[in-house]
């Protein structure tokens, strides 16, 4: 067997490739000989954290993944749920954190490209993108550069492929200084009877490569994203992957055109570890063997070795198994779209992957043990100490000043600077754009169906108490969907954590998953797809390592049978304003505490899942019944920030009544108690009695009207003043 590489394969090289001594020992016993360089490469990427989920798998298994409306849960390229009328929503979220630190524009752009492929590979036309972003301290000079590149990259790719970017979130925290998070989510729609899976089948069937040609891009990206960053990371980086959204757009159209025929047996995008993971997974899932002939692979660069081709992460490529008699139909379609189309192999009954290049066998690996004997770790977990409850705090600034400060603070300030760089209307189906509703609403063309989409996570809660934080992230996504009138169906997740070899990080991970699972079960909101990103740490020159805040980002999807029933949070004139849900005045981990006192402590707000469900079901029923004309969930910054957001979005003011008696004003106005909604209704009395009859806590907040926000003690803040405070942060940071 030729060993195209110059390097000797041994344990030291295996370690360089990210395998442990034990893992390498396992490779030797599976192979019964020293593997070739290409074989070692294949093992190392397939057994990397990124592809094998070796640290997370045991925990992921505990998440609820089923419901009557779930068509495909985790395990496929993306999750699939029934949205009615014979249609399915197909969606997933994925991270591109490490690449976005190295090259923010391309890192973010290729992140969007990758998640799009996961969705259209299943037969769905992508209808919406979202993006959950976490950046370092705004005061850190690097932050500005990273924000600029990431936002341009997300927009640059999404705008060009013509999928509207309709929502997302942005947080800032110093823990992300050397390790920003870029989590991209795509939602697509397909007919339920035309969903494509990746399990290969049919002895002798051709294996087809389509899309862009292969270069030496991002070799070992998968193993890199599975190890923490050190000061050498920037120097060691592989050739950065550059995205070509134009080719992606052609690939979407060509694949969907081919999918309208009966040519495809199986299809899979080439994501991390490109040709290796796609071919191994397709063959593995189908229980067949696969022979690849690398001479046939379209190549962008001269002299590429088998190792390089198998590990390249060049973008915009897909692998398909076709019915042999339909190969020409497929070729014609891809030629029309001016994309590469090459038969690079066929299926066998050997149960092995055999890779040939220039007349030599470069790899010959049994597929079953490659999958079954992939490492699986029960890593030790250490619980984080329970946060001390927040003691008494003073209010040094008063209600009005605190409000003005909060609405201009980094985590609450208007995100318009970000989402105005994203085409949110292309497709002509965007019913609610960013900044107008708690979840974006996208209509399905030619139907009355609307999808409600959101991403949520409050990492500061997760750090204080990961279990509560995990549950809160799911609950907030559910609440955001509910607040539009939609019925929450399912979630995708992106679990961003530090180094899993540290017991305290693994403890956070485990607890967050437990919390998520609790919430998903209580809310009938199963997890249908997701992604894990570990080793999000930065090693500083003095040798200390800092982990990011635990960030289990949740992407939620809900459905409206009649999209015209969707509502937003823009304040409407002449309404009574009512707060649904109980207020205890929880200031622990609140933004008020952080922004006014500079403190990040106390326990996060309690997540009462029964109350969450009861309050949400009540609110949704009254939205669909037409009683509620505007609705906003209460989250970061509490009730008063929520009211100010409604006023700014609707351009209609409000006059507020005194807070709950017996509660300090700052606790009432800025506490972040969960399970609450601010609703605007035409008939306050009727609504309040309905709430009482249903056993739902509800209290009047005031009424809408006028062109300012009038506080109970009398001061009125004009809408113009609110807006200028709200809108200043991003331009001041970015447009210097």
């Amino acid at each position, binding site marked *: 067997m030729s060993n195209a590489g110059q390097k000797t394969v041994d344990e030291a090289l295996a370690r360089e490739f990210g395998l442990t001594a034990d893992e390498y020992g396992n490779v030797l016993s599976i192979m019964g000989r020293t593997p070739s360089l290409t074989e070692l490469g294949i093992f190392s990427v397939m057994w990397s954290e990124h592809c094998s989920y070796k640290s997370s798998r045991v925990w992921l298994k505990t998440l609820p993944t089923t419901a009557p409306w779930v068509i495909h849960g985790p395990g496929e390229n993306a999750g699939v749920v029934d949205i009615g009328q014979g249609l399915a929503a197909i969606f997933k979220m994925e991270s591109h954190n490490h690449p976005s630190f190295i*090259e923010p524009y391309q890192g973010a752009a290729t992140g969007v490209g990758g998640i799009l492929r996961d969705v259209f590979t299943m037969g769905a036309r992508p209808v919406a993108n979202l993006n959950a972003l976490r950046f370092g301290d705004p005061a850190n000079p690097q932050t500005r550069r990273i924000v600029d590149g990431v936002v341009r990259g997300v927009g640059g790719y999404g705008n060009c492929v013509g999928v509207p970017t309709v929502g997302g979130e942005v947080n800032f925290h110093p823990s992300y200084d050397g390790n920003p998070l870029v989590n991209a989510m795509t939602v697509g729609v397909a007919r339920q009877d035309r969903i494509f899976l990746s399990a290969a089948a049919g002895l002798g069937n051709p294996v087809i490569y389509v899309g862009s040609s292969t270069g*030496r*891009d991002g070799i070992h990206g998968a193993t890199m994203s599975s190890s923490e960053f050190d000061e050498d990371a920037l120097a060691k*980086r592989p050739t*950065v*992957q*550059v995205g070509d959204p134009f*080719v992606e757009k052609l690939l979407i159209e060509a694949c969907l055109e081919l999918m309208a025929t009966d040519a495809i047996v199986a299809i899979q995008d080439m994501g991390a570890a490109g040709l290796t993971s796609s071919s191994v997974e397709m063959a593995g899932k189908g229980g067949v063997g696969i022979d690849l002939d690398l001479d046939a692979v379209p190549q962008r660069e001269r002299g590429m070795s088998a190792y390089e081709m198998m590990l390249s992460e*060049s973008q915009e490529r897909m692998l398909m198994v076709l019915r042999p008699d339909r190969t020409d139909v497929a070729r014609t379609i891809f030629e029309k779209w001016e994309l590469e189309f090459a038969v690079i192999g066929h299926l066998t009954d050997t149960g092995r992957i055999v890779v040939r290049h220039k007349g030599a066998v470069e790899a010959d690996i049994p597929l079953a043990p490659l999958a079954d004997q992939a490492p699986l770790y029960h890593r030790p977990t250490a619980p984080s100490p329970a946060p001390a409850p927040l003691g008494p705090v003073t209010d040094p600034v008063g209600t009005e000043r605190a409000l003005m400060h909060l609405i201009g603070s980094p985590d609450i300030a208007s995100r318009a600077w970000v989402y105005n760089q994203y085409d949110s209307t292309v497709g002509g189906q965007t019913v609610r754009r960013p900044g107008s509703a708690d979840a974006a609403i996208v209509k399905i063309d030619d139907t009355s169906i609307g999808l409600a989409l959101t991403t949520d996570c409050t990492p500061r809660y997760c750090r204080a108490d990961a279990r509560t934080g995990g549950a809160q992230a799911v609950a907030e996504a559910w609440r955001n969907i509910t607040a539009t009138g939609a019925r929450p169906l399912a979630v995708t997740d992106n679990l961003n954590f530090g180094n899993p070899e540290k017991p305290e990080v693994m403890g956070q991970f485990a607890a967050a998953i437990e919390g998520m699972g609790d919430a998903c079960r209580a809310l009938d909101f199963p997890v249908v797809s997701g992604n894990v990103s570990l080793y999000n740490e930065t090693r500083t020159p003095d040798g200390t390592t800092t982990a990011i805040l635990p960030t289990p980002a949740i992407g939620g999807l809900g459905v409206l049978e009649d999209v015209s029933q969707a509502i937003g949070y823009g304040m409407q004139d002449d309404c009574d304003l009512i707060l649904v849900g109980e207020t205890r005045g929880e200031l622990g981990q609140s933004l008020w505490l952080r922004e006014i006192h500079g403190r990040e402590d106390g326990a996060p707000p309690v997540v009462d899942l029964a109350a969450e469900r009861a309050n949400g079901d009540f609110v949704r029923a009254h939205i669909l019944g037409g009683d509620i004309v505007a609705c906003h969930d209460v989250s970061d910054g509490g009730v008063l920030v929520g009211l100010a957001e409604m006023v700014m979005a609707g351009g209609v003011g409000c006059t507020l009544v005194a807070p709950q008696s017996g509660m300090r004003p700052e606790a009432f106005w800025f506490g972040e108690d969960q399970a609450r909604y601010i609703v605007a209704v035409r008939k306050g009395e009727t609504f309040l009695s309905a709430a009482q009859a249903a056993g739902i806590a509800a209290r009047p907040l005031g009424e809408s009207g006028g062109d300012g926000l009038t506080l109970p003690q009398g001061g009125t803040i004009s809408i113009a003043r609110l807006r200028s405070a709200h809108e200043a942060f991003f331009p001041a940071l970015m447009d210097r």
Partner: protein
Amino acid sequence: MKVRVTVMLKDGVLDPQGKAIAHALHVLDFGSVGEVRAGRVIELEIAETDADKARAQGDAMARALLANLVIEDFTVEVVA
């Protein structure tokens, strides 16, 4: 003096733009065209009379802003 900074993608880095231009030129019947690489050029007036100093400034500006050294290379010429 006038300095010209030319910024090109590094060898091996995919150049979608160059690829698309090559394709368009073929469609326009410029069949003799092989590889095409697209880059940027930035011409800067610098208040400086010494050519070496002007070049050094161009170099510094390229590193600081004009080129993205992760994926791009640059050259600096003094043109006037």
